[in-house]
């Protein structure tokens, strides 16, 4: 629960109804934010420089390649950003497995049975037959986002490195798998791109709940309102812990 502490208490609001005023909940550490920013940067570069090659006959393919400064430059951008993403992926695993002191099994990111139930309840909620599920620190959607990106990173980095060094790879694996890499890489990249542009951006940008965007990716914080609405179980848990610690100022 160390990350879930309340980090900021601003001036009390003018009505004087509350002692503490607006409070914010720490959603992401700076390290996580920086990883996400690096991810955005490399991901967008990779999409822009990669998609013209996935769809070489599309009208926008030559437009984008010329915009990037020619085919050779496109390739260099894609390779450089790709290597950046590989480094990011390695850093992510090393940091969160070996540096982060929180026990691996205690992480809230593992899928649980509750997520399966929440998933079903979400569908029921969409068709109007149930209440919206109450989420803890991470909803099933967020967990899917994370593990989807994790899987995609592994696939894209491995196949990307195979294609970057095809002849070195062929010292170990047959040509068939180098050939397969091109299929897996582009399919997986298309999946990732569509998922980010449609599903992820709906959840964090376009959805009426957060439109124009959730600022958590910039500040790392959630407001109390957002917290109650999107992560009610976590909110209750944090409040309970604070009360146990005897900090009465947070009891409402």
């Amino acid at each position, binding site marked *: 629960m160390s990350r879930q502490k309340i980090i900021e208490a601003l001036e009390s609001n003018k009505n004087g109804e509350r002692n503490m005023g607006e409070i914010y909940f720490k959603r992401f550490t700076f390290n996580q934010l920086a990883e996400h920013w690096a991810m955005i940067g490399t991901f967008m570069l990779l999409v822009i420089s990669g998609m*013209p*090659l996935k769809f*070489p006959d599309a009208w926008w*393919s*030559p437009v984008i*390649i010329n915009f990037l400064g*020619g*085919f*050779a430059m*496109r*390739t260099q951008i894609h390779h450089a950003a790709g290597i950046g993403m590989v480094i990011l992926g390695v850093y992510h695993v090393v940091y969160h497995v070996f540096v982060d002191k929180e026990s691996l099994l205690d992480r809230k990111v593992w899928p649980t049975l509750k997520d399966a139930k929440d998933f079903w309840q*979400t*569908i029921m*909620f*969409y*068709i*109007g037959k149930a209440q919206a599920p109450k989420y803890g620190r991470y909803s099933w959607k967020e967990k899917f986002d994370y593990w*989807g990106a994790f899987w995609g990173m592994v696939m894209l980095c491995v196949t990307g490195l195979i294609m970057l060094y095809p*002849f070195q790879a*062929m*010292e170990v*694996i*047959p*040509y*068939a*798998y180098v*050939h*397969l890499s*091109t*299929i*897996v890489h582009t*399919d*997986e990249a*298309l*999946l990732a791109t*569509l*998922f980010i542009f*449609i*599903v992820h951006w*709906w959840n964090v940008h376009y*959805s*009426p*709940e957060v439109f124009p965007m959730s600022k958590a990716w910039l500040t790392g914080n959630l407001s109390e309102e957002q917290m109650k609405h999107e992560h009610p179980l976590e909110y209750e848990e944090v409040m309970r812990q604070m009360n146990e610690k005897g900090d009465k100022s947070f009891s409402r």
Partner: protein
Amino acid sequence: MSLSNKIYSLFKNKYTLILMVLLSIFIGVVSAQEDVSCYHCHTKVVNEFRNNIHYDKGFNCASCHGGAEKSNSSLISNTVMSGDFVGRPTRNNITGICSKCHVKETEDYKTSIHWDAIQKGHPEAATCTDCHGIHEIRAIKDPNSSSNHHNSPVTCAKCHSNNEMMSAWYYGIKADRFDTYKESFHWRALDRGYTLVATCADCHENHKTKSHTDPTSSTYPENIPKTCGKENCHEGVNFDAKVAGGLVHDKESLHTAELKWNKTGMDSNMKDYFLGPFDLAYWIAIFFKILTTTVIGFFTGMVILDFLSRLKIQRRF
């Protein structure tokens, strides 16, 4: 002063006269150098020939077609078609003309599967002129040359994308070689103006084109590492020759490779090594196609449902 007087006085000017004399000499010299006799009838052909690298080097019609050398005047056009005049050579004879100068190239070409086919009585198989042009033979380095490095795919496709020609019983070659090449990084880069990539002739050799079942072919599996590792390509590559025995041109047909393989009659050891991974690779490729479609389809549906539920119209269901 009237107009005729003006013109008259112009002719009296000695400088004008000298200029006109020089001009007529110039025209005379220039036209004497050209192949006037052939040009009179074969205008189009001679115009094409003027883009020919041989024209720049000082060759004329008679250099290839034979006949009298002194063919510069229309008066002796009869003598042009004398002596060793060949007129329009048959397709079997074209190499005979080119080999007069291009000895090495012809020797190489005569080891190719194209020449083999011509010898076996299929004269439509490629000969010199099919790749280099007939009268408009340009230098290889000329970007407009049909045998220029980056025009090679289109030039080969003239025949190799021709289904009728390729499916003839004595060839039985698939006509999708260019289409499958288009799937490769090589073509996609080439198509976007990056010319430092392999085209047909780089792997299959320009003159020594052979079947990939021929052990001396550059595309025979044993030789592929050497072919990929050519100077200025993937220099210094190092991999087991068996590894490279792949169907480079076949994208979707990984799984059905066996059928084609059986036709080629290759070493059975290589067949086992080669087919195993391709069979699995086919299913992995299918798995990813299904995964992409399912995940995107499902989650796009969820986004739409989410949107509808926020509009509070879920009761309509």
